[in-house]
C-alpha cells in the first residue's frame, strides 16, 4: 500500500525552478532517507509535502487523500506530521505542556474551553508516556527554552510523533549534534517511529545507511535514484553526482 505519493511535483520561486518534476511513491511502513547536496531541494520537498508551500504543479497524495494545496493543519489532521531542521517548539511552555498541546487535536479536544486540561486523563497519560519515550521525564516542568540543544531536538521529535501520525517527516533530526548524541538519537528515532512510514533528510551517511530501508537521492530538484541502500551505493549516476565527492566518501566510510 502506498502511504505517500508525489506525481510530477514542481515548485518555482519566481523564475527559479527549485523542484523540477519529482515522482516518488513511499510504501506504508517504509523508512526512506532523502539525501542530496546542499540546496538540492530536500527541505523544499518536505515543505511541499507538509503544506508549508503549495506546489506550482503536480499532485501529492497521502493515502487516498490528495493533499497538495491544503493547509498544514489540514494535512496534519489527515495523519502526516513533520519536524523542523531549526528547532521549532513552544519556548515558554514546559516540556509536559509542549507535548500535551501536541496530543490535544488527535484526541478530539479541538477548540474546547468547557473542559479542564487537568481532567483530560487520556491527554495527560499520553503526554506523560511520550515524555518517558523521549527521555525527558526528569525535565517535566522545565520551560522548553531552558533545555539543552539535544533535549530540545528530542522534544521536537516528541511533538512530531505526539499526534500519532502514520507518516512522519523528520528534517535533519540530528543536525548540530555530536557523534555520541547522534548515535543515541538515531536509536531513539528508531524506537519512536516503529511501524510508521518515515521520511528523513539526513547528512550523516553512516546514519542514512544504518536507518533507511530505501534512499532517495535528490540533485537539482530531481530524484535521480530511489532504491535500497546497496543499489543506491552502486548506482553510477549517484556516485557521479553525489557520493563521488571526497567528503561524502569519507562520511560513507564511517
Amino acid at each position, binding site marked *: 500500500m502506498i502511504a505517500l505519493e508525489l506525481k510530477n511535483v514542481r515548485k518555482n520561486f519566481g523564475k527559479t525552478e527549485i523542484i523540477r518534476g519529482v515522482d516518488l511513491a513511499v510504501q506504508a511502513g517504509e523508512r526512506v532517507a532523502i539525501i542530496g547536496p546542499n540546496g538540492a531541494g530536500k527541505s523544499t520537498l518536505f515543505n511541499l509535502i507538509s503544506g508549508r508551500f503549495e506546489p506550482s504543479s503536480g499532485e501529492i497524495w497521502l493515502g487516498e487523500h490528495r493533499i497538495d494545496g491544503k*493547509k498544514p493543519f489540514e494535512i496534519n489532521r489527515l495523519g502526516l506530521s513533520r519536524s523542523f531542521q531549526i528547532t521549532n517548539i*513552544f519556548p515558554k*511552555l514546559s516540556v509536559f505542556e509542549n507535548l*500535551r498541546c501536541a496530543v490535544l487535536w488527535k484526541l478530539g*479536544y479541538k*477548540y474546547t*474551553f468547557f473542559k479542564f486540561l*487537568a481532567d483530560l486523563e487520556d491527554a495527560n497519560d499520553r503526554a506523560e508516556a511520550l515524555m518517558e519515550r523521549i527521555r525527558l521525564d526528569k525535565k517535566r516542568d522545565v520551560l522548553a527554552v531552558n533545555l539543552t540543544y539535544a533535549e530540545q531536538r528530542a522534544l521536537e521529535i516528541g511533538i512530531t510523533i505526539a*499526534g500519532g501520525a502514520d507518516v512522519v517527516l523528520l528534517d535533519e533530526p540530528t543536525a548540530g549534534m555530536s557523534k555520541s548524541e547522534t548515535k543515541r538519537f538515531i536509536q531513539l528515532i528508531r524506537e519512536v517511529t516503529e511501524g510508521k512510514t518515515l521520511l528523513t533528510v539526513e547528512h550523516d551517511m553512516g546514519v542514512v545507511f544504518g536507518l533507511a530501508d530505501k534512499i532517495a537521492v535528490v540533485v537539482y530538484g530531481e530524484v535521480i535514484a530511489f532504491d535500497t541502500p546497496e543499489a543506491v551505493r552502486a548506482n553510477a549516476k549517484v556516485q557521479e553526482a553525489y557520493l563521488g565527492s571526497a567528503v561524502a566518501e569519507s562520511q560513507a566510510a564511517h
Partner: protein
Amino acid sequence: MALTKTHYEFKPYNVARWIIWGLFALILLLAPKLFNSNLSVSMLSQMGVAIIACLSYNMLLGQGGMLSFGHAVYTGLGSYVAMHALLAAGSGSLPVPVTLIPLVGGLGGMFFAVLFGYVSTKKSGTTFAMITLGMAELVFAMSLMFSEFFGGEAGVSGNRVVGESFWGITYGPQIQVYYLTAAYTLVCVALMYAFTRTPLGRILNAVRDNPERVEFIGYNTQHVRYLAFIIAGFFAGIAGGLASVNFEIVTAEVVGSGRSGAYLLFTFLGGATFFFGPIIGAVLMVLAFVLLSELTKAWLLYLGLVFLFMVMYAPGGISSLIMMNLRLAAFGRLKQIWVAYVGLGVTALIGLAGTAAMIEMVYHLQLNTTASPELVFAGIALNATSFNSWFGSVFVMLTGFGLFELARRQYLHDWEETQVYIEKEIKRREAL
C-alpha cells in the same frame, strides 16, 4: 464515563488555591468597610471594572501574544449597548433586571468582537496590531457620526434605578453598585482563570509562542485567535456594562484610543506574563486616573516615565518582580537583599523629588502665567523663576540619582549572589 484508571489515585485538594481565592473574595467583601467614603467606594467599583477589562485585555496580550491597540472598542461598545438596554428597561420595553445589564454589555462586546475580530485576527503580529488600531479609529470616528446610538458630544445617560426593588436592592446607593461589581469581578476573574486551564487556553499560549508550529499539530491558528478574541470581547463588554451602571453616563471617549492605550499600559505595568498581573495594573490604573490626576497636572508625564522605566528595567511588570522575590523568599534569601531594596527606594525617592520639583515648576510657569511664580511642592515653598529653587532641585535630583546608581550596583551584586546560591541549592536538592 468510562473508567480509564484501574488504580485509585490520591488527588489532594489544592489548599493554597482555595486560600488565595478565599482571600480574594474576602478582600472584595471587606474593602468598602475599610475604605467607606463616597470617593473610595466609587473608586473600588471602578477598580472592579478595570480588573475585568485588563484581564480580558491580557487574554489577548499576555496569553495570545496579540498586541491590540483597540481594546476600548469592546469595553466601550459594551458600555453603549448596556446603556441602551438600561434605557429600554427604564421605559419598560425590555424586561431585563439591572443585575443582568452588565451581561447584556458582555453580549454587546462579544457581538462586535465577532464582527471586527473576524478581520483583525486573520493576521497576527504587527499586522494584527495595525488592524486593531485602524478599527479603533474607525469606531471612534463613527461615534461622532451616529449620534442616535452614541449620543454625540453629550453621550448617553440613563438611570440605574429601574423597576421594583428586590430585597431592598435598588442600585440607588453606590455601595449596592459596588457589591454588584464585586460579584461580577469575582465570577469573571474565576472564569478567565479557568479559561487558562482549558485546551483552547493552552493552545492560545502555544499560538503566542510559535504560531507556525501550531499549524503542524493540527490547529488553525487563525481560528484559535478568533475564538480568544471573541471571549476577550465578551469579558470586555461585561466591564463596559458595569461601567455604564456605575457612572450612568457613556460618552464617546470610552471607545477612544486613550482608553485603549491605558489598558495596554496598565496591563503591561501589572505584568502580562502572570495571570494576576493585570489585576495589580487595574488597581494602579484607577489610583492614577482618580488620585494622581488630582495631585498634579503633570500626572500623565509621570505615568509615561514610570512606563518607560518599567519597559526598560522590568519588562515582566510588577507581578514578575513579586514572583522573583517570592522565589527568593522561598529559598530564605530575602533577608540578604532587603537592605539593598531600602537603599534603592530611598535614593529613587530623593532623585524623583528633585525631578518632580522641576517638572512642577515648569508646569506652573506654563499653565499659571498670570499667577505668581511661587508654588508649594511637598511642603516646601518654591519660586519657579528663582535660581535657588532650580539649583536646589537639580542638586537634589543629581544627588538622588547618583546615590541610586551606587545602590543599584550594590543591589545587582547582592542579587547575583542570591541567584548563585539558589542555583547551587537547586542542584543540591536534585542530587538528593
